[in-house]
């Protein structure tokens, strides 16, 4: 038991608390899937799911696709994982841990805020990300809304 407590830092406990708090009070908002404005590719819901589950590293046109995700605790993230990937945070994490520790994929970049996501996607041509649909700006192109 002692060891268990060591594995969970106060910070982790705090994020669990924030996650519960964030999930409890907020109504579900729409999630927008965004890419670089110059990226004119069309992606299906299945493509999005395959990219964010690390199964494929390219858009349907063969160009490189690099997923960028919001950090745990962000409501849009829980929304994305449940609605788009039909998974739970634990299942998502377990799925990615398999890819990371077997060398099949490098972990997706995790950013704290929608601003950081928007900045990254407007700069990187291979990026694909999700944010709260209400926070979308003209710097990015929306490929799907869930």
């Amino acid at each position: 038991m002692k060891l268990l407590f060591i594995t969970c830092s106060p910070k982790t406990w705090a994020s669990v608390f924030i996650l519960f708090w964030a999930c409890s009070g907020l109504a579900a908002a729409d999630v927008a899937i965004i890419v670089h404005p110059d990226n004119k590719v069309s992606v299906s819901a299945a493509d999005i799911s395959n990219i964010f589950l690390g199964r494929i590293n390219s858009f349907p046109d063969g160009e490189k696709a690099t997923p960028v995700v919001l950090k745990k605790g962000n409501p849009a993230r829980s929304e994305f994982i449940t609605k788009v990937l039909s998974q739970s945070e634990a299942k998502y994490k377990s799925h990615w841990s398999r890819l990371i520790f077997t060398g099949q994929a490098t972990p997706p970049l995790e950013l704290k805020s929608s601003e950081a996501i928007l900045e990254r996607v407007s700069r990187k041509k291979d990026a694909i990300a999700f944010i709260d649909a209400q926070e979308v700006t003209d710097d990015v192109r929306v490929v799907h809304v869930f």
Partner: protein
Amino acid sequence: MAQSRLQNRRFLGYHSNHLIESLFASVIPRKIAVICLIGSFISDHAYASDVWFNGFASIVMGRTYADRNDTLLVDYPAGGSYESKSTMQTETLAGLQMLSIINEDLNATVQVVGRGTEEFNASIEWAYFTYEMTPEWKIQGGRKRLPLYFYSDFFDLGYAYHWIRPPQDNYTWQIFNYNGINVIYNTNIPDDWVLQINAYYGREDSPENPFNMRSLRPPASRFYQSGENWKDIFGTVINASKGPVEFRINHMSAEREITEKALDHEKKDAANHIQFYGASLNYDDGSLIVLSELNLYQEFYDTTTGDHIYWETWLISLGYRINDFIPHVTHSVFDSEDGQERHETLSLGLRWDFHPSVAFKIQGDKTRDYGNGSFSSNTDLISFGFDAVF
């Protein structure tokens, strides 16, 4: 140029792991705690540089209940077994992985694992580079896990499956890792399927093989030495997935050299051609989980006469996710054609994801051995523990 930079980075990678290793060597009982602490401390800062740290740990306790013959081998690759006395030594382990991004297309990975069965002496189990030629083609070289069974690749990563361990009746193999090259091809195929093909070539020398030394059970097993070298390992893994469905088939062939040595005399040397075929079909829609696996193994003692042994293993597992709980039931079988090794296990278990990165698991296994040789045993096992990733 890229090559020399890679070697530099890989040298640095090894170097820092030596530091970590010597750190562990100083306080043996606290090694797991240390690895977890390092992991949780550095993982939050990993994005700042081009080096990422990730880790995993399992803390498992178990004991057997049986009338006689109460040793049950559960971890064949590392030779871990349970007896009628509770222990945490058998399956407790921790791993730390360092991924160094050299540039957009090139990265290097080193994974260090310390196991209870090996007195927590952390060793480098994976060390390889990955070069992304195109988004669809990757080439990897170095030391990796041999991807024989479905769970071989992530056998140590309890967090990624619902059992305490992949069923021991299936996961009976001697060679855990290999040194060589691996080519990966990922592509979209019609109807939203994703296809992944792996082809690998390499070899592995294991002069004191833990599996052989513990499972072959000669009269003086403690002093028994058995070397196992697999040469010309050539394998292919084809994996297709769509939504909740994952389908995998694979084949491997190798030249197996065995050198066996008893306490006082050399017993036998052999060089046999081996063939392995595997197929898995898994389904997980977020609620219902169905896992299945079938593996066939052939070993030719004499390729001209075709004299060989043949065995098959299979498993089926059902689980159902209810909020953070996954109750599951599994049946697994080992069956050799000559009747020497025959055993099966019925398992009942529960996984509870009580924390976003830690799962609690408890499991009961009933193993029955019908073989003419003594490979497994008629034993019941209760085990429980925690699996974490950080």
